[in-house]
């Protein structure tokens, strides 16, 4: 499907800008919800832009770590079961670092400013 301009990311940023402008003129709960809505649209915009790469990277990493190739959600489930069963107790730092890396990517979508400076992308 070939859509006309603007792109989905552009639309999200445009609606987000509207909420950022309109929010401060509201009061009480509506003002708060406008802020949160803008925040959610920011997540959508970044996810559309970044999730494809992050998912591929995460799948490749998990596939190598687990030594099997399955859909991402199945591999994540397997990782969770193995952690709980204590299979990585002797490789703790390795699994911790891998999960940290994947969590950093999640945060880059949700709220990049939340990351410690050492994990932030150059702006």
């Amino acid at each position, binding site marked *: 499907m070939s859509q006309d301009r603007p792109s989905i990311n552009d639309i999200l940023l445009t609606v987000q800008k509207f909420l950022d402008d309109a929010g401060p003129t509201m009061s*009480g*709960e509506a003002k*708060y*919800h406008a802020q*949160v*809505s803008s*925040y*959610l649209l920011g*997540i959508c915009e970044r996810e559309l832009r970044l999730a494809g790469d992050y998912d591929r990277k995460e799948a490749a990493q998990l596939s190598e770590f687990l030594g099997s190739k399955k859909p991402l*959600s199945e591999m*994540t*489930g397997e*990782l*969770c079961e193995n*952690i*709980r069963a*204590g299979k990585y*107790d002797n490789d703790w730092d390795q*699994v*911790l*670092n891998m*999960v*940290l890396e*994947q*969590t*950093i990517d*999640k*945060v880059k*979508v*949700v*709220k990049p400013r*939340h*990351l*410690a400076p050492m994990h932030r992308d150059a702006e």
Partner: protein
Amino acid sequence: MTDEVDDIRRAVRRRFGNDAEIGNVAIPTLGGVNRTVIFDLTEGGRTRRLVSRQETYSAEDNPFLPATQQYKVMQVAFDEGVPVPEPVFEYDAADGMGNGFVTAFVAGETMPQRIFRAVDSDARLKIATDLAALLAKLHAIDAAKVPFLEGIPDSVDIIGNYLRLFDSYAEAHPAIELGFRWLERNRPIFGPRRVVHGDFRTGNFMVGPDGVRAALDWECAHIGQPMEDFGWLCVRSWRFGQIELAVGGFAERAPVYAAYEAAGGDRIDPDVVRFWEIFGLVRWAIYNVMQAYAHCERGRRGVAFAAMGRNTSLVEYELLMTLAGKYS
């Protein structure tokens, strides 16, 4: 006269007589899952400012203490001299208002950023040492005075209870699994069990110019390890940007631990606090998962709940950075 507080007026008159009047009504906008109403009660020639709280969300998987038990814990805490809003009365079946209660209104500020802006470093330290003294007093309460707390899941095995709760959402979270595994492998030897507040964090106590005035939000009270309250208070999310001040964004750890011991609390082992702090991060991550679950599966929808679901990853990041020794 009929208005939005008609039911509260009826409940008040049942207890204080038909001359009792309520006025100066304020309804906070961010009441969360409760209906909260602040009002003046005039009866018997005096006027008091009171707060009414009613449960409006009572799903069977609601992990919080029933209102009637919260009220009893607050009553015992109040009687023992813990700063807490004075309990006034509890709603009953004849009120037809569900579960809830009325307490004295305590003036002051709960919003973290407003408190931080209003105080200098001396006042911050005073607040933190007040918190330590409050906890020492709370933890000294004889648990036999609140026997009904013994039966609740958080009192039996709080970590196991949160694992069960987490499993009930059937979501894969490797970071939370790592947190639970760490807790499993690093569990300290537990000491005597005490009455703990369970949700003692910046935002849940009232602060005035004179220091800490009241501990609020008793819906997570239970019997457990006293250091659980310290661990929760030190969780990074409750520092609200003041990340170097581990105790709720108010002070560093050492002077607060010393204040607790000086106020009669047991000696504090920093490693035990760290254990409960990591449990606190796990718990807070699960709480966010729970909000997403209620939003996606239970029809309790809204932008704030949706955002909390996504904020799970922010807590997971803090948990993993803490486990990796990069955050303290």
